[in-house]
């Protein structure tokens, strides 16, 4: 049987880029949530975790409205990159980020909050700016938990189906991710292909999760 591995590579690419982007954004948000008091903090907290509870179709719908070719953001994107966002693999990245950001923020915030405050105080006392305190003290002390959270987020984003199909569609060879390809194979009655892809994604997921668990337990043992 000839298996087209494109969906696997696409899924891995999309999940990696989504995880990296959400690390940047998620670290910043979790830093704010862990260290600062500000108005609207509760709203931000809720907004960040919302994607965990809303149905994917609802999220997909929001994204279509927000990023569609008629929307402000959509047109802005088109103006910069000279092509529309929806129904491209880049849209699948955006879809995946809705899964990665909540998980990342939750774990990174908990990790940052669990860093003993006296280390951060000591760093400030020794003349370090907030920026240096974060990069040199808080982050290194929390990095294992954050990395584990990022792996978890990566694994979760591999599994997205609903949002991806709504804003990236199901274009074989272009936007068809692994989860979508499995759906496609089952629909088309190609049981052998579906089985193969299911096994592949399961193995990848188990490998990532066990790596994440090892990171966390090694930190606890220290």
């Amino acid at each position, binding site marked *: 049987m000839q298996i087209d591995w494109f969906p696997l590579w696409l899924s891995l690419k999309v999940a990696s880029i989504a995880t990296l982007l959400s690390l940047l954004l998620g670290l910043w948000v979790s830093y704010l949530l862990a260290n600062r008091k500000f108005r609207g903090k509760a709203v931000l907290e809720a907004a960040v975790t919302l994607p965990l509870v809303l149905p994917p179709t609802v999220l997909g719908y929001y994204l279509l409205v927000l990023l569609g070719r008629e929307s402000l953001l959509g047109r802005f994107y088109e103006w910069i990159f000279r092509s529309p966002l929806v129904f491209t693999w880049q849209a699948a990245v955006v879809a995946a980020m809705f899964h990665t950001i909540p998980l990342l923020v939750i774990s990174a915030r908990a990790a940052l909050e669990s860093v*003993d405050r*006296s*280390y951060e*105080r*000591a*760093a*400030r*006392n*020794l*003349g*370090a*700016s907030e920026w*240096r305190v974060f990069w*040199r*003290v808080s982050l*290194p*002390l929390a990095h294992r938990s954050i990395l584990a959270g990022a792996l978890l987020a990566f694994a979760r984003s591999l599994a997205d189906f609903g949002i991806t199909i709504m804003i990236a569609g199901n274009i074989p060879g272009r936007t068809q991710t692994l989860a979508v390809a499995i759906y496609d194979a089952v629909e088309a009655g190609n049981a052998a292909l579906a089985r193969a892809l299911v096994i592949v994604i399961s193995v990848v997921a188990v490998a990532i999760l066990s790596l994440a668990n090892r990171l966390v337990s090694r930190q606890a043992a220290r």
Partner: protein
Amino acid sequence: MIQARIHKSFPPGPHFAAFSLEVEFQASNGVSVLFGPSGSGKTLTLDSIAGFVKPDEGRILLADELLFDAASGVNLPPRARHCGYVFQNHALFPHMTLRQNLAFAAEDRPRLERHRKVNEMLERFHLTELAGRHPHEVSEGQKQRCSIARALIGTPKLLLLDEPARGLDAPLRTELYALFRQVRAEFQIPILLATRHLEECFQLADQMSIFREGRVVQSGSPRSIADRPANLEVARLLGIFNLLQAEIVELDPQRNLSRVRLWGCDLSGPYFPGKLRGDRLWLCVRPEQLSVSAREGRPGPNQVPAQLIRTIEMPQAVRLEFAGDLTVELSRPEFEKQKHNKEWLVNFPAQALRVL
């Protein structure tokens, strides 16, 4: 020179009662000890000076620089305050070696100078051989030395230490006290040290302030405070006195004489200004100022019969505990002479008598 006036109140919460800190003090170069039980506001005072806690009211002035002033809204961030802080748990960065810990504190300096400074401090605090190790790989005393070195490497204008001897055993304490003396001599800055141990005050302090429930109840040199506790509270906190309820039966300012009745016996002492005949008050005498003798017949002048409850062997002395919360501390040879007494008299030398 540091001058601080700090007011900070906390409303009662679900897990703690209301607390308010209202202290005012100043300290010049040398060691000033903040002495008090836990929860008396010592750490909060240090944290306010270092800038970790923002007082509600007050003013903190360090070497002519205003660190905090509620009235004019000045509140420098911790990084701009130039206060070295030695934390209770050392707070050495666990992911850095000792050398890196020191270098972190000197990062604003040019590379070569930083290198030189770090080496100098490692040398000075006997850490050179351990420089490549992480904090969890060195002993408690070495961590202590490293955290003091780290606090001093940026040449702070003030050094704050929060219970530095906590968790150290006796030899390490002695070593630490020696280190403090070295630091006091080499760095001409005020050193504020919070502790619950009176021993530390006597070993180290040029000056001490006694904290109780967020207030400074007395300050002065340790010697003067031990000789003249300001009131019953202070005497109780110091825990080095016999506090016995007595009554004044005679006062004679002309002859500088007084008589105090304790347990039915009259003791003569110096004149106590500001007291009246018939006042019930507290006799405050240190155990080592008392002596004992065997009771034969009636007690003589300034002697009180007492019933021995137990004797406690101490490293350099023997403590005799009598009924009625009266303790006498004798040197060992003295105790050997007295130990066969059946009934006891406690002698109160007139010049040792003090009343509160």
